[in-house]
């Protein structure tokens, strides 16, 4: 049985004060907090097992290697990848996207087309623009409607034999919209295009089954899933990962090096040059264990409850507008008070100990669409409570009073 008060005890940071007030942490879409179980794993790793992996004959190196590879398997099982070598450790979502974008440089030519969506954040726009510049391919954008949903009829029109790659986030970081990725993947495969799904925002809420989705690439970050920063994952279908050239050269990713020629290591090491974030990878595995022990369905149900409650309560405030009103959303509410800049609201909320994100959320095209400088974004996690939402609502009222 899910008991939020028990859960909160796992997160030491949730009991601290900010500006003299109990912390209300509603910036989970930017980064989630870390439970004691994961922090303990980090301490244990550095206290007892720290060594470089895959190349030492000594005991510590073997232990560290085992822990790291176990974490890879945990991630494989979690996302239901067919092979553990389809799981590439990265420094995070952005790294995973860049790895794929870079790899496709040698596979694309002039006249090829890449499709992204209007709901992307900068990390899923800029690498593709750079790829287009390198290859002469063109970038097309699936537009969105006033609810913040992608217009699929437009997607159908722009899809063609020229489409080689499609990059869409599963969930929009700025609006919380859950995109119809199943539809996109199926349609893409009909024209032979590959699909990369950015799961940075969905992975903390929705358990993705990469085989069932039949997706070609899927990226996620540990720090949004109760894990540490600086580590993430790229899933790629074996056939694609074999086709892509290595991203970075260095140790670990080689089979044999002479000054004449280097042969590359097998997957996944081909894409893991240098000493990785060993502890981070292990802690990522621990974070996934932690979330699975609670259960993703339980998490999603509870977060939906929070979303509904917060939406209802916030909309009672006169002049408050919510951006992103899709029926299919994760627990993200982007809003503005009429005539008041989001930065001002965020500043007052911070003084009240409430952490929200303000600004354009690195998704400027979305803000341009709504003709706003940004929004205040409150994003909820399973360790948040309805009482905290009440605090937010009171805070927003106070901000409105002070700023009007």
């Amino acid at each position, binding site marked *: 049985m899910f008991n939020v008060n028990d859960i909160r005890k796992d997160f030491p940071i949730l009991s601290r004060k900010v500006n003299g007030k109990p912390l209300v942490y509603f910036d989970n879409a930017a980064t989630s907090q870390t439970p004691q179980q994961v922090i303990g794993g980090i301490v244990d790793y550095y206290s007892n097992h720290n060594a470089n992996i895959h190349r030492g004959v000594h005991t510590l190196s073997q232990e560290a290697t085992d822990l790291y590879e176990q974490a890879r398997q945990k991630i494989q099982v979690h996302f239901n990848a067919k092979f553990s070598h389809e799981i590439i450790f990265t420094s995070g979502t952005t790294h995973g996207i860049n790895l794929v974008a870079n790899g496709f440089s040698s596979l694309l030519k002039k006249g090829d087309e890449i499709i992204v969506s209007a709901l992307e954040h900068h990390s899923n726009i800029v690498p593709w623009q750079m790829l287009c510049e390198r290859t002469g391919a063109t970038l097309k954008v699936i537009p969105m409607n006033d609810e913040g949903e992608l217009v699929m009829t437009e997607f159908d029109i722009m899809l063609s034999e020229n489409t080689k790659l499609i990059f869409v986030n599963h969930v929009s970081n700025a609006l919380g919209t859950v995109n119809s990725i199943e539809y996109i993947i199926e349609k893409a495969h009909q024209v032979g295009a590959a699909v990369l799904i950015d799961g940075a925002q969905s992975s903390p809420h929705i358990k993705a089954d990469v085989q069932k989705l039949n997706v070609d690439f899927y990226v996620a970050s540990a720090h949004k899933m109760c894990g540490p920063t600086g580590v993430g994952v790229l899933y790629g279908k074996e056939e694609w990962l074999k086709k892509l050239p290595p991203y970075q050269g260095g140790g670990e990713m080689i089979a044999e090096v002479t000054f004449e020629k280097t042969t590359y290591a097998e997957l996944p090491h081909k894409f893991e040059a240098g000493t990785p974030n060993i502890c981070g990878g292990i802690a990522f595995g621990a974070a996934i264990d932690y979330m699975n022990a609670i259960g993703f369905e339980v998490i999603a149900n509870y977060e939906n409850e929070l979303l509904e409650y917060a939406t209802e309560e916030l909309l009672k405030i006169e002049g408050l507008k919510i951006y992103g009103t899709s029926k299919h959303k994760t627990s993200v509410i982007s809003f503005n008070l009429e005539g008041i800049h989001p930065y001002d609201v965020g500043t007052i909320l911070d003084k009240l100990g409430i952490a929200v994100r303000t600004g354009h959320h690195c998704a400027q095209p979305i803000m341009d669409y709504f003709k706003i*400088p940004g929004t205040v974004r409150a994003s909820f996690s399973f360790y948040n409570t309805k009482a905290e939402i009440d605090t937010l609502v009171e805070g927003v009222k106070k901000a409105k009073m002070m700023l009007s």
Partner: protein
Amino acid sequence: MSIEDIQNEIIDEFSMFEDWEERYQYMIDLGKDLPLIDDQYKTDSNIIKGCQSKVWVHAEMKDNKIVFTADSDAIITKGIIAILIRTFSNQQPKDIIEAETDFIDDIGLKEHLSPTRANGLVSMIRQLKMYAIAYQTQLN
């Protein structure tokens, strides 16, 4: 009045407030009172653009003193720039260049000093001083 005198005056004003709420309310009011910049100067070249809010600053020379006008799309930011303008406007370039800005700490706005806030106090102060340096070069 010298820059230092004005700063002391501002510190005195802020010392009357008992809590952050009163301080912020005062800043918000200052922002509302800020003389708006002439629209022709709200150009991209006059903008201090950050991730959070926009600030426009314009400077012109009158009787060997620099007159600053500014605006922002966020009211708290406007309050902050209003305080800076009050401090540095109608002063000689040399005095602006040499002025200390520790008074920001004394009025309880330290959190706005973070260098990562691209449009925060640090970059605003830098911008005002840049204008002063430019005018000083002209005077030499």
